[in-house]
């Protein structure tokens, strides 16, 4: 009897939670906070950036109450799997490996991978790179690309944040960095990055960036996908895009 009651109560609670997921619900969203201009922490300690603006716009569109948390990059998928938050909006690329672990929404922007190196260097991605030291952020598709394509010939250095990789390129420890084009674009336009430039064509240009939710939670993924479509149609997306880039990154 008791057990039956428990089961009924649990089922009711689950049902309630199910319906509550629609109106005025709370969605916990994780971002990294060290990936300008997509997500970063400003002088006052607030998280800002393209991802954050998109997250806010999507939540408004979905009429959901969103709580934003920051999480170090290499623990961001494990944290989602363990239920510390419901979604990741942190410039995450869709990859087959990640699709084994999480479910993705429709893409909200497209990215390319491109090398950067000092302007006075004759670094050429199409030449023989044997013996070079190349940096990338740990647990990114750039690090994965390097391991898959150049793992045997170059020394790959992995950094906790993209900012640390740029710092080490500036100190001369690296011959080049492979990173997301728009993140590099932002850095190359800054004072620190003025002595560096893109080298060669993007080595990978079909990188789709999407929102990750817990594996199998297609309901939430679809809500995000619909909301992305909606903000794209009503011009909200374009307004956010213009704040950061003079070109459309969708």
């Amino acid at each position, binding site marked *: 009897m008791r057990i039956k009651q428990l089961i009924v109560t649990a089922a009711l609670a689950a049902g309630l939670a199910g319906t509550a997921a629609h109106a005025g619900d709370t969605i916990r969203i994780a971002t990294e906070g060290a990936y300008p201009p997509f997500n970063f922490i400003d002088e006052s300690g607030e998280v800002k950036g393209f991802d954050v603006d998109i997250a806010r716009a999507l939540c408004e569109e979905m009429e959901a109450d969103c709580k934003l948390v920051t999480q170090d990059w290499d623990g961001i998928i*494990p944290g989602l799997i363990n239920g510390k938050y419901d979604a990741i909006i942190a410039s995450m690329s869709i990859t087959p*490996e*990640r699709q084994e672990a999480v479910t993705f929404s429709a893409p909200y922007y497209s990215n390319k991978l491109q090398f950067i190196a000092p302007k006075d260097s004759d670094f050429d991605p199409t030449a023989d790179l044997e013996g070079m030291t190349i940096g990338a952020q740990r*647990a990114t598709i750039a690090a994965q690309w390097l391991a898959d394509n150049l793992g045997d010939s170059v020394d790959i*250095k992995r950094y906790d944040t993209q900012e640390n990789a740029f710092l080490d390129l500036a*100190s*001369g*420890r690296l011959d080049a960095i492979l990173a997301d084009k728009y993140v590099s674009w932002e850095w190359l336009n800054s004072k620190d990055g003025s002595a560096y430039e893109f080298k060669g064509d993007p080595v990978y240009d079909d990188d789709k960036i999407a929102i990750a939710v817990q594996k199998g939670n297609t309901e939430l993924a679809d809500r995000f996908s619909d909301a992305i479509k909606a903000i794209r149609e009503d011009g909200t997306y374009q307004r956010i895009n213009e704040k950061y880039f003079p070109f459309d990154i969708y």
Partner: protein
Amino acid sequence: MRWSVILENLPQLLHGAWLTLELVLVSGVLGLAIAVPMAIVRCSRFASVRAFPWVYIYFFRGTPLLVQIFLVYYGLGQSPWVRDSLLWPVLSQAYWCAIIAFTFNTSAYTAEILRGAIQAVPEGEVEAARALGMGRVVTWRRIVLPRAFRIALPAYSNEVILMLKGSALASTITLLDLTGMARTIIARTYTPLEIFLAAGVLYVLITFLILGGFRLVERRLNRHLRPRTGH
């Protein structure tokens, strides 16, 4: 739980464990070499002589190891003056930056442990040595230092184990030590529980190894205290 993922990545984890062991041993030996003179100077009767080791120990014990390792790796690399200096071939390598930061850090703690041990050597033994006609240097070499090492050993083994755990910070400056390797594997497999568990077990094994080494040294140093067995 995917246990097979541990097995698949075990060679890499062992590779990382080896680097961890190397970092701890190299910085441990170098740290000890700095700590001994530092502790002796720290016991000087003159305040002006004591001042340098005091500042050194105060600085390295008073700041987090993470800050020290970042200062050596990212901090020094910022200045063009350092990049053009003769030291750059060393400082440009993450490995040596980690060794430098760990060495300074552990030498400060070890010097303080030794300082306490030197002061704990019974006054009577020093007086006895003097009464036998030993000079200051001979007294230090034959009586004070050997006694102090014996007294310091248990506390020093603690410091080495703390250093082992501190060495995980090497992963923040791109080194693939046990922690760095574990994080790199997890970046591909998304199995933090399994891989960190395996890394934890390896850390425990290294700790046993270090403790075993200390037990051997302790037995050797204290062999005169063991009851004599017949010939």
